[in-house]
């Protein structure tokens, strides 16, 4: 019955198609609109230099948001990524004397360990993700302060480590290459691996996924470990670019990261979202900040507009869900 009358009653007027696209793919349209506005009001906006600048600025939040996408699709949230960023940054600078490979390895392991701790508590001990990561956010930040003794740590800008944040391959900054590579790899993992399928299932309905023989706890554990890992990679890029690390550098980053994922259209309620959307969300914020600077908008106003955009994104999430559930 549904199939036969489907075409008859669904009036496919131009307006309705447009509304449909806006509801489901609003962020893509918004990003394109931002580009058009940018190119109209500023000559330098579309210059390759500015474009790569935008991409590089989006790369740290973007890399971290890739991990966060897994956690949010799985129906959880991770508030500790900002603190993990802080800790991994001070470690990356502090361990520089230990040699490049070893310091990078330790930073990555520490990031993963923080993620594993979150995942263990949330996935296997069934604790609430919001509360658990609020707790680890505080603890990990404290460890960063203890390790750095509260000092702004300076690294060696001439060391090979700086290549990660400052290097270029041709015209393309290395952070952008890492961001693109991560996007592709984790897009494939989310869309085509058993783990990715399990993440969607767990976020879609954890009880039903469990009753289908999916190890939902393990899935959550891995998603959090992945978020810890991407936070550590973000820290390597950032500390390398700055050749220094402040123990409080990551404060507030968790919100930027979550905002980028939500803005892309990944649902706070779990089960819906994609890496592509997250990439677009991260790009949107970077383009937006870039435009604000080009337009000389005062920083407090930038924050107000940014907040309004986040609220709109959550609103769009609700509308989008309704649009899907006719």
């Amino acid at each position, binding site marked *: 019955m*549904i199939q036969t009358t489907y075409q008859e009653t669904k009036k496919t007027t131009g307006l309705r198609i447009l509304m449909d696209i806006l509801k489901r793919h609003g962020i893509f349209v918004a990003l394109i609109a931002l580009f058009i506005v940018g190119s109209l009001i500023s000559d330098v906006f579309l210059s390759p230099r500015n474009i790569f600048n935008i991409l590089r600025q989006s790369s740290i939040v973007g890399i971290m948001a890739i991990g966060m996408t897994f956690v949010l699709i799985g129906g959880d949230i991770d508030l500790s990524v900002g603190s993990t960023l802080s800790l991994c940054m001070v470690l990356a600078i502090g361990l520089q004397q230990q040699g490049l490979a070893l310091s990078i390895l330790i930073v990555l392991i520490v990031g993963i360990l923080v993620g594993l701790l979150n995942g263990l508590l949330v996935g296997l001990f069934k604790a609430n993700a919001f509360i658990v990561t609020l707790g680890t956010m505080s603890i990990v930040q404290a460890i960063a302060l203890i390790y750095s003794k509260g000092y702004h740590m300076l690294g060696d800008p001439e060391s090979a480590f700086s290549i990660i944040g400052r290097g270029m391959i041709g015209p393309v900054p290395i952070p952008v290459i890492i961001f693109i590579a991560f996007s592709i790899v984790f897009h494939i993992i989310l869309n085509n*691996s*058993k783990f990715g399928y399990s993440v969607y*299932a767990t976020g879609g309905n954890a009880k039903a996924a469990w*009753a289908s023989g999916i*190890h939902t706890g393990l899935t959550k554990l891995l998603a959090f470990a992945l978020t810890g890992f991407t936070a550590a990679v973000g820290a390597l890029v950032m500390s390398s670019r700055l050749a220094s690390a402040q123990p409080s550098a990551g404060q507030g980053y968790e919100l930027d990261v979550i905002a980028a994922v939500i803005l892309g259209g990944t649902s706070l309620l779990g*089960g*819906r979202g994609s890496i592509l959307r997250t990439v677009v969300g991260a790009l949107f914020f970077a383009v937006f900040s870039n435009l604000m600077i080009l337009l000389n908008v005062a920083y407090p106003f930038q924050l107000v507009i940014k907040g309004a955009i986040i609220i709109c994104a959550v609103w769009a999430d609700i509308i989008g869900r309704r649009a899907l*559930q006719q």
Partner: protein
Amino acid sequence: MVGEYILEMKGISKAFPGVQALKRVDFNLQRGEVHALVGENGAGKSTLVKILSGVYKKDEGEIVLNGKKVDIGTPQIARELGIATIYQELAMVPQLSVAENIFLGRPIFGKFHFINRTAMEEKAKVLLESLGVSIQPSKLVEDLSIGQRQLVEIAKALSLDAKIIVMDEPTSSLSQTETEYLFKVIDRLKSNGISIVYISHRFEEILNVADQISVIRDGNNVGTLSGKSATHEKIIELMVGRRIEEFYVKVNVEYGEPVFCVENLWRKGVFYDINFEVREGEILGITGLVGAGKSEVVRSIFGLDPLDGGKVLFNNKEIFIKSPINARHLGIGFLPETRKEEGLMLPLSVRRNISITILDSLCKWGLINSLNEVQLVEDYVKTLKIKTPTIEEITVNLSGGNQQKVAIAKWLGIMPKLLILDEPTKGIDVGAKSEIYALISELVKNKVGVVLVSSDLDEVMAISDRLIVMHEGVITGYFKTKEVSKINVLSAATGFNNPQTTNFSGTVAR
């Protein structure tokens, strides 16, 4: 007073994107009658009722109430016109008292504009007594049974001076005694001149309680029968538009080896001393009243709930299932009773719901082969006749019957040796029911052992080869379905000692 129409709905039409839900439906309701609405899920009866209660706006047609044309734009207007609806999921605040719930949103005030609890409780008491119900008005709703809550809802409707009460599947969560009690209350309401629109899937009840029965099919009112002349067969014929013999599908299959066997299974306080075996190609029915523990047994077997002791043999080897993951790897599938909570991931697509159990076999070098996945899912959608625009449609948009088919389809992919179906036809329409029976037949032909847990006696007696009856956590009867009468089964289910119990399980039962 009986004879005049209190409500006439004329030529009501309603379309939703993708579907014409109602096509010029007429529906007339007399004063003081119980008028049952029956039809498959998605036939349009809920839509009709929602138009009556102001939830949906009609596209076409008119509603005449007490001889006056009315426009029911919102639920608020419906309430003011004296039309009350009691939904399947009751809309109550559990933490408030009975009286507070009855007068929710319009409390009785006393001195200094404080809420006068005593006056509210007294008024509530009068209302409840008028229904012949004795529930303390000061009791919290969360301490009441579902049946009692429903009676409170009815009292609330009366307090709003309702003349028409719509009951949507009122007995779906009630026990036998509670149901009988509800019918007594309905009788009282009738004698007070209140009309009742009664929606139900349970034919026995409808035949018992309804004065008129209207059958809705594909958005049309295909006929109204008087309660006296209606029979089970007549209603089903109108509902499905074909004859009833085709309804229960059952094939006779030669049984093979025992595939699954449990011995002395128990879980403290829930069930004890459970023994049975299932052979290849056999359908074992488990029935009993609500609360008999039949669901609990199969949930524990599948690893969803704990077990305290006993032995489980699968292909003659002892196994220990600690979670559904073990069960799935062994080739055991389980369709849970609660489709929305455990059966399906409603926000996800049909594809993701079906492929979830077979990710391992779809994997090649760690990645899922999407082409194989789509092919497989489309095959199941085709063979199970799942009505969905595409396999990417999210399952929440499917009708109940089609959702159920998706929930079953996911277990077909693992090539199960044992499939446990817990109330597979609960809350789904007649057409989908008969398709599910056909599917079960198909499974046993392929040597799958099937455990069918069902509260629907007709169903379980028609479909299964052997039948276990449970009462309060223990097995009170083993029957061969061919040799047993409904009365034997019912007396076992209610705990009467039954001399005709045949011990079929040979070595297992003791």
